[in-house]
């Protein structure tokens, strides 16, 4: 069978599986819809969290980005895993004990204020929408490359599937489909990595293969070989990188704190039974995520070495079939500048003849390594699982923010349980349609904004939640001022240095780099905005009245793990 047939087969089987699970686990109540009835086992929750978390960005883009950035790519590896330590130690157990449905629920109750709740809802919507548009786009790319349907048709198919199980099943449906999606995506990521590791180094464990000797008889270490190839072509040493230490530090911090502040991740810890289950499932989630995250840098090294070996200084006419396939998508392009018929792939932009989109590395990797067709098809199914599971989790946050936090808690408190459930389904439908629209007509800046969503989460939620738990005297004035100023500062920095809004638009962005505050890039600025949030909150608190007695009692209560009970809206 060829790749095409295998892809139809594997994608068809996995989609049928997801839909079957969704029908089996329909939501009957708002409790089911928002927190899956609160009875999910720690292992199932860990798997669902891992699938929820690992998006098209983790599955498709990350290894590719690292393979071009080398050491600098470490910010994603540490940033997107280290956040779980913060989540497990500082947030998850306490939020579970608090026992409500959403993050704005916590902010609104802890800071005894509708304003705080609305500010939190707006932050949650900004973060989730920017993120979900990127996922729909990822679905479209996979469909267009592997099933040869048009990108727009791909997005629409993806929309229908997500709509089906998110709207029908709510959190309950999503949780159990995500368990299945985790299995699909991790299998799809590991199989080619293991194959290639054996091919290149003889070691079946990619994490070790990355640091092993090549098995071409030279006895040379793979990483030394890659460092040599990189410097030869004028790139930075792979294990060294170009970013300044302070920028690497700040970006890592922003990604870690942003991870801990992302509403679609936090909300998963509302679905388990007891506080100790919340801790344990955070650990399991990170363990399951770490399997992919420690394999990804190995894939990057293999892919980079393989690619350079295949193309560098070789005749264009002798390129293998995958090269031509990707050329037709426009994601790979060759321009023979010196007319010698060979491919010069070098750091110097005036001489370089090959442009490679970073996103194709993971998808093209099995083809570059000449693996069997079913492995290539598996990668397509895995990419779809990663994109769909994250999209569904985000849509749920959006729909809960609207139906629960806005309609039920602010505008129509008298709404019946049934009415709220229908409002949630309606909101999810509208959100899917909007996300699909952006997937089909991506505003040029989707990718940039997705990275910045972490900065926004770091600058807004993280300080408010941590202070709410660890600082009993924190009051609403401090928290609201901190969130508003933190997120505004982040948005300002992003508009100024990422979009060049104040200096003549996109063209000016590159020239503004020297003006970065303290040499910190917009991706790392979330760390600064977070610190500002903390400082503002504490200063304002000192000059305003302390929170009422009963709120201080709530804080004392969430610090004690026993008696968590069911999540409830009362």
């Amino acid at each position, binding site marked *: 069978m060829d790749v095409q047939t295998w892809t139809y087969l594997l994608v068809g089987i996995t989609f049928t599986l997801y839909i079957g699970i969704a029908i089996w686990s329909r939501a009957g109540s708002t409790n089911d819809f928002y927190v899956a009835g609160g009875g999910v086992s720690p292992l199932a929750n860990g798997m669902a969290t891992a699938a929820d978390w690992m998006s098209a960005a983790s599955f498709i883009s990350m290894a590719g980005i*690292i393979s071009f950035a080398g*050491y600098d*790519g*470490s910010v994603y*590896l*540490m940033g997107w*895993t*280290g956040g*779980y*330590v913060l989540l*497990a*130690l*500082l947030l998850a*157990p306490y939020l579970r004990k608090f026992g409500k449905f959403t993050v704005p629920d916590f902010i609104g109750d802890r800071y005894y204020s509708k304003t705080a709740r609305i500010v939190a809802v707006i932050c949650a919507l900004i973060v989730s929408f920017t993120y979900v548009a990127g996922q729909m786009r990822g679905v479209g790319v996979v469909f267009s490359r592997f099933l040869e349907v048009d990108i727009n048709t791909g997005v629409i198919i993806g929309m229908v599937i997500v709509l089906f199980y998110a709207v029908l099943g709510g959190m309950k449906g999503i949780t159990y489909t995500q368990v299945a999606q985790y299995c699909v995506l991790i299998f799809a990521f590991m199989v080619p990595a293991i194959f290639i590791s054996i091919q290149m180094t003889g070691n079946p464990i990619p*994490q070790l293969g*990355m*640091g*092993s*000797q090549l098995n071409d008889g030279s006895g040379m*270490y*793979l*990483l*030394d070989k890659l460092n040599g190839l990189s410097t030869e072509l004028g790139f930075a040493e792979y*294990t060294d990188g170009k970013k300044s*230490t302070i920028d*690497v*530090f700040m970006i*890592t*911090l922003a990604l870690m704190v942003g991870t801990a502040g992302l509403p679609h991740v936090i909300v998963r810890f509302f679905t388990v039974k*007891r506080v*100790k289950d919340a*801790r*344990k499932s*955070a*650990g399991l989630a*990170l*363990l399951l995520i*770490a399997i992919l*995250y*420690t394999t990804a*840098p190995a894939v990057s090294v293999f892919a980079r070495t393989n690619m350079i070996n295949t193309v560098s200084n070789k005749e264009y006419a002798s390129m293998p079939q995958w090269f031509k396939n990707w050329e037709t998508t426009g994601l790979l392009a060759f321009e023979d500048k010196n007319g010698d018929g060979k491919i010069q792939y070098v750091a110097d932009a005036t001489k370089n003849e090959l442009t490679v989109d970073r996103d194709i590395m993971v998808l093209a990797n099995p083809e570059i390594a000449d693996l069997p067709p079913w492995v290539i098809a598996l990668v397509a199914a895995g990419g779809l699982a990663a994109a769909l599971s994250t999209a569904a989790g985000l849509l749920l946050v959006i729909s809960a923010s609207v139906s629960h936090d806005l309609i039920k808690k602010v505008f129509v408190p008298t709404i019946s349980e049934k009415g709220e459930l229908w409002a949630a389904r309606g909101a999810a439908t509208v959100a899917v349609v909007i996300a699909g629209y952006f997937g089909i007509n991506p505003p040029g800046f989707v990718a940039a904004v997705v990275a910045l969503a972490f900065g926004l989460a770091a600058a807004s939620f993280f300080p408010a939640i941590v202070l709410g738990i*660890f600082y009993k005297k924190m009051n609403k004035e401090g928290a609201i001022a901190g969130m508003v100023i933190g997120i505004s500062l982040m948005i300002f920095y992003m508009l100024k240095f990422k979009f060049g809004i104040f200096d003549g638009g996109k063209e000016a962005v590159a020239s503004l780099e020297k003006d970065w505050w303290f040499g910190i890039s917009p991706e790392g600025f979330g760390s600064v905005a977070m610190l500002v949030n903390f400082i503002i909150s504490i200063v304002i608190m000192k000059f305003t009245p302390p929170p009422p007695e009963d709120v201080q009692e709530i804080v*004392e209560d969430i*610090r*004690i*793990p*026993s*008696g968590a009970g069911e999540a409830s809206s009362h």
Partner: protein
Amino acid sequence: MSDKQKKASAYWRENVRYLFILLAIWFAVSYGAGIIFKDALNQIKMGGFELGFWFAQQGSIYVFVVLIFVYVRLMNSLDKKYGYNE
């Protein structure tokens, strides 16, 4: 302060102490070994890996996983000690 409150605040103090220790390790392996002292550690080779690079792309992640499970165990026994387990 009632006995119940005393117990609660003793529990909280121990919890916060654990957090400080675990987060210090969290900081040391990622920001310390993987970023600030990366160049110095890169002088040391472990198989084909330069050590600073290994911490940044592998080691810190393994330590993160271990940290959470250590935390789970510490807290479970702390809960038992204070009778908060269920």
